[in-house]
């Protein structure tokens, strides 16, 4: 943590009038928002509302068609190495759990001799210490997602993006993953997570960004969002109505 404090923070992350289109079809329009340090940001909304797209743009995996995204005042490419992302279905390499984490450490310039110990420590942190030698592809869905978290932590991220990380998991595995996310947040990692699960949003969110039809409808503190959402779309979504 002390080493990180020396480096300049990449927060806040700022979207200014960001739009994204593919093949002439606008998928995201006029999104302006700020990701501030300390708050756990939950991106809520129905399928196809632009949640995952926003995450991928924020992480620099996609380039906006219009507007601009900055992190700590810089372009996203600079910030990418201080960010990590966990996807809905983890893509695990065909090697052992530990080798998956070692691979990420290697990409971040950790010396070969240090990788094994660091990988074991990261696996222990997500409760996979006993499974470090197991082939990643035979892990259960929940174990695989925790391995993806260990791999994401390998880069010591200041910002952790999570794209529907528990969508495919049972309640027990979901609790384990949420616990890991919460402890990361307590240790100072900025959490930006998408979900369509209201219960999860209530448990984890400090603030909610609600998306519908490719637009950001509101960015609201969590307590206020669940009591009195500002947008019609959010009211309908909280009632359980279908949004088009």
């Amino acid at each position, binding site marked *: 943590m002390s080493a990180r404090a020396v480096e300049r923070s990449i927060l806040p992350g700022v979207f200014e009038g960001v739009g994204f289109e593919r093949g002439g079809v606008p998928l995201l329009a006029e999104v302006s928002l700020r990701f501030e340090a300390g708050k756990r940001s939950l991106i809520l909304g129905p399928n196809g509302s632009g949640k995952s797209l926003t995450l991928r743009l924020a992480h620099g995996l996609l380039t906006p068609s219009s507007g601009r995204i900055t992190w700590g005042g810089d372009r996203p490419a600079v910030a990418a190495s201080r960010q990590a*992302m966990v996807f809905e279905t*983890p893509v695990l390499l065909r090697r052992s759990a530990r080798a998956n984490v070692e691979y*990420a450490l290697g990409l971040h310039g950790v010396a070969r001799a240090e990788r094994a110990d660091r990988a074991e420590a990261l696996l222990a942190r997500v409760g996979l210490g006993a499974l470090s030698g197991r082939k990643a*592809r035979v892990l259960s869905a929940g174990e695989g997602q925790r391995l993806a978290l260990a791999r994401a932590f390998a880069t010591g991220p200041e910002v952790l993006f999570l794209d529907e990380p528990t969508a495919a998991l049972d309640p027990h595995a979901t609790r384990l993953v949420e616990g890991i996310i919460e402890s990361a947040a307590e240790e100072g990692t900025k959490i930006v997570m998408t979900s369509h699960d209201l219960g999860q949003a209530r448990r984890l969110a400090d603030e909610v960004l609600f998306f519908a039809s490719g637009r950001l409808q509101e960015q609201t503190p969590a307590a206020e969002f669940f009591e009195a959402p500002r947008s019609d779309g959010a009211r309908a979504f909280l009632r359980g109505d279908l949004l088009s």
Partner: protein
Amino acid sequence: MSDLGQAFSQAFHMIGSLDPVLLEIVGLSLEVSLAALALAALVGLPLGGFVALVRFPGRRVVVVSLNALMGLPPVVVGLLVYLMLSRSGPLGGLGWLFTPTAMVLAQFVLITPIVAALTRQVMEDLWVEYEFPLRSLGSSPVRAIPTLLYDGRFALVTTLLAGFGRAIAEVGAVIIVGGNIAHVTRVMTTAIALETSKGDLALALALGFVLLGLAMGINAAASWLAEIARGHEA
């Protein structure tokens, strides 16, 4: 009819008794085609990976060319390599013409596009799944090539077997650049062509059976490996 029967029984006898002439020809065939495959893998695997993952100007042209070159006619490859290696050709000074080295070179030219084009397909399919996660971890497309070659290793063995199958079974290229010289550049396919035209059906048949066995063995191995690969998908 009895001639044919005699040829068959002689052929089986040659195989059963491990006839030295037969073994020499089979051995040279394997040597040449395996060497060509090793070189083709060395070039074709990274090349296929590069074309699949890295965006560069003219990439579409390279992709289309690789696919088109998969269908190179062996006699044309033989002719081109012959022209390169002939005494007045640019590589004439090497003195490779009518040696096994020339045959390795010709088969290498023939199957490298096959290995590269099939590798590109495998890698492009993998990249759809791997691109965002690997880029998120900080990998560049070039750095991801060895990662994907390793993760796609079961599918890529099938690719190599396809290249080997093409090399071991072709006759047009090796007969032009090798010359089918007994004990020097005579391989299974060229020997079959020659012995058949000479009317020595026994040796031709024996070689034919070995080649058939190899070809079927390669296909069996390929589908068996594909089976294993599916098991590793889980």
